[in-house]
């Protein structure tokens, strides 16, 4: 049992069990707060009955025309609460908000090309690799840009994979 609610500042002081995970980046304050200030509907946390942070998702909505899309910046779950599809629930929430509230065309995310467990999970959730971004992570590791089309994109144009990999400077957004 899980209560999902908007992420708030106080959660930053209680998300250590999630963020001590070595794959979860702890960003600087302005990063989190910018997300809270600009896209409060895209930043949610799941808490257990004791109000402990089980996991959270942060994201945004951006782009123009048919590239207006939701973006998953981070999704992470504390070890104690893994293997119960919590990430899936959080992803669905973000997809629903992108789809119904913001009428976005697709949702995308970046993942380390080596992070196979995550890639497999996103694939199960219906994401496909749209393109490879060369040396996206700290100029070293490649990133995969994965996408899932939403109801606006009737013909699923947004997820037709690009033939060639791109470099980070070709990315449309930060």
């Amino acid at each position, binding site marked *: 049992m899980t209560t999902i609610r908007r992420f708030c*500042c*106080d959660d930053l002081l209680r998300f*250590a069990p999630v963020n*001590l995970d070595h794959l979860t980046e702890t960003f600087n304050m*302005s990063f989190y707060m910018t997300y809270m200030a600009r896209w409060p509907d895209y930043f949610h946390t799941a808490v257990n009955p004791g109000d*402990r942070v089980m996991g959270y998702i942060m994201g945004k909505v951006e782009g123009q025309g048919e590239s207006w899309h939701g973006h998953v910046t981070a999704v992470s779950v504390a070890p104690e*609460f893994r293997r119960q599809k919590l990430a899936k629930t959080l992803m669905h929430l973000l997809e629903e908000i992108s789809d119904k509230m913001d009428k976005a065309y697709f949702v995308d995310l970046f993942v380390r090309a080596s992070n196979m467990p995550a890639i497999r999970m996103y694939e199960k959730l219906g994401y496909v690799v749209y393109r490879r971004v060369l040396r996206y992570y700290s100029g070293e590791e490649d990133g995969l840009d994965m996408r899932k089309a939403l109801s606006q994109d009737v013909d699923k144009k947004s997820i037709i994979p690009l033939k060639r990999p791109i470099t980070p400077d070709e990315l449309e957004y930060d």
Partner: protein
Amino acid sequence: MASKFGLAGGIPERRVRPIWDAVDSRQFKAALKLCTALLAKHPTSPYVLALKALTLERMGKADEALSVCLNAKELLYSNNIFHFDDLTLSTLQIVFQRLERLDLATSCYEYACTKYSNNLELMMGLFNCYVREYSYVKQQQTAIRMYKTVGEERFLLWSVCSILLQAYFSSGGEKLLALAEALLKKHISSHSLHEPEALALYISILEQQAKYDAALEILSGDLGSLMGREEDKLRTQGRLLTQACNYVAASEIYQKVLESCPDDWESFLHYLGCLLERDVNLPKPATGEHTCSSCSVGSAMLNKTSLSEELVESRLASALSFVEKLQKSDSGDFVRGPHLAIIEIERQHRLNGKTNDRKFMEALVNYFHRFGHLSCSSSDVEIYLHMLSNDEITELLDTVSRSFDASSVSVKALGLTVTTFKVQELLGTFLSKSTADLQRTAKGMFETFYKNLPLSRDLDPQESMHGEELLSMASSILVQLFWRTRNLGYLLEAILVLEFGLTVRKHVWQYKITLVHLYTYLGALPLAHQWYASLEVKNILLESVSHHILPQMLMSPFLQQTASLVKDYLKFMDDHLKESADLTCLAYRHRTYSKVIEFVQFKDRLQRSMQYLAVKSDSVILSLKQNSESLEKVESVLENVNHGEGLVELSNEDNMKHLTFNEDLEARPWWTPTSSVNFLSEPVDEDSTPACFRAKVCKHKSTEKDGPKMRDTERKSLVPRLVYLSMHGCVSSLRETEPNGAVSDITVGEMRTLLEKYTRSIGYSMDDALSMILGMSSGKKSIKDFAPDIVSWMSFAVFINAMNLWSNESVIPRTDESSPTSWQIVDNLVKVCIEEHLTDANRILTCPGNNIPLLVQMVTEPISWHIIVIQSCIRAIAPQGKKKKKGGPSLRPNTPQLQGIQRSVQCLIDTLRSVQTWLSDQMSPEEHALDILLSHLQGTSDGPGQTFLVLGENPAAHASELGDLISKSLETWSSTGVVRRIVGAEHELLAEFKKMVDSKLKRLVSELASLSSVLH
């Protein structure tokens, strides 16, 4: 920056852009050159001046930058400027802000807004200035002016937020809320509302005034459609209806929420609360308070309902049928909410007097059958488990254990095994088991982990292992065995278990955190620090996680590493407090009004952080420690902090009352629930029941605010000022030739006041404290009785001696000539305390929780302060003596004082030499130390060292089952290697300490020489 070009104070964009580009790419010299060139053409352009100031500031030339800014400001104020644009002002604002002169930026905007009264852009700039200064009233007035100018909804909301901030941070909230409501109401009647956040704010204003019906009416009207998600709207409605005591309607609403979100536990509790017609106080930790989750969850929903028993039963029956319906509609096996709900409903039956225990038990058993393999299943039901009797617990565990084959190797069976252990851990069952049982259990856990390791063979190395928790639990039991038997072998084994786990998977943070504490306790601090460093704690985690390492480091001889921890933490906090208002501006700009309020509150919370306050003092004390052997450096440290005055001010009563506690204590091991408590240093209370022990832990967590940490913090904040006063007091007293009042701003009165505060924080009045140190130094009072604060007592004696030097009347009552002087009191106290700890401290290698941190503190604090006092005295006399002109006063002033100093130096030398010798004795050769430690692991068949027998000779022998990855990592495993590292780390700690003692001795020997030359 592109948008900023165009109207650049009349300067063509092509001329300005290169400057911005140069600044952005950190080519400051080039930028400055361009500015100078442009200034030649436009000498009176405030914009170009602002750019120059910006560049100068980035180059670190703060003074020049300020002067250029002020020049630009003057030009703006003169009447010949036509281009009064926001670009110039905002550029100036950036520089002023970086120079921490927000007031100047504000006054520029204020001036501009007076001059061009209806310029929206300038007013927005001014509004932001007030946001940065936290001037809520002025924010409100500015926003209202903007609203009146253009009539836009957002400006009204800016004003409403500013009003709410006033209400939050000052008294008179009710009137302010009414004002905010009235403003919104008026606007809505003419313009309606268009933003979801505006609606949410309006509802919250009504709710805070208990106008629930009005809020509900708005929500169900046209405006209700602004709420983006239906569930959010329903939840708000449910909440408002509950508060309005309209339980029937509220429960129907919550049913709807649960139908679409069956796992929403909070809504379920509200639903049940409504059916039973009572308020549900869900556990929401008050801002900045430590709470113990197991206690606070338990207290929710405990208040009894006023309904009759029959009515309660019928309501619970309807809840049950609703929840069963929810269960049926769930196709997957992941929604736990409705299943837990059944347990909660059965609990309510129990609370209602109907003790149909079978059903409650059945519900729990069913829950474990369904979800028992999940990691969180035991903590899910923790509060319910505490309601069971011992027999019921046994029955529950038996039933769960019978439901699967524990000997099979499968993820599900492993999960269930882990859960049965976890239940016992949560309930504290292990506390009452025999030593032999515990040993078997720990061994069994390790065995199960190792046996099931093949399950993780195909997992990605980034993924967590199956059954990971078994090692944490085994280690925890081994620590308990150590606590009970004091057999060091168990502690080493507890470490080995976790190190083994980290050999298989190097990223398990739970293991690392426990190791941090185990290594600290064992005196192998460098290893604790290494594991902590591997967690890469940064940014906000510095506030919530630093408590795992910082307190230990502050008591260690590793001053440099500690300084770097402290520096990182303070930098994070200071930076955030500076930038926070900019983010509030961002929230205003994006109309996220809820976050406006939240950001300001959060900034306030961090600003009032207990840890922040403590570390500010720690940082100065640390610098003093690092530089204590050079008076010049000590002086410069003190000069940089306004001679410690600011720190004293920080710990004033008002500030201390409103501190927040932001540490996340959840991950701490059971034996050290807070940084000031370590159960392992206390004897085991054999009679303590698990419930008593739990209560004790909770108490420690929740009383942290009134506990010793608070008093420590207060005391620490006084130290830098006391050191400063001590130094300067000595100088004034010993320079007899100087007229009194040469240091007139320093008064004995201030020192007395501070020392009174100081002794109060140890729990004594000044007079009592004086007689205590007299008693201690003469051996009449036992040092042991003052043990926890002994370092503070010693420092107090040092400060008293310094004060005594320059006070007209002796601070210490002397009955006759044979009474000790204040120098002698310090000397004796130092000697007695150190000697006592040296005899007491056993070999640190085999005696965990030893006295080293205390000894280090004695040497780095009171002894350092005393050496500073001594040096100040000597400097006051010696150089002056040399410089004296002919016919001046005596070259040897105040001989008795000097002799006192000389004796004191000699005493310190003797005492530190005994520490030096003791340390050398402790540092036995590595191989010898290794043998000693290993011997603790090779005991009899019923002692420590059993766990690793499971591994046999070669843990990686079953390579085929374990898979390449795991067997490869296990090839590097060596328990002897781990023990060797412990020996090395302990040695490193001693060596560092010895280095410190050596350098102090060197200093003292040289002071002794200079004293001799003055005296003879």
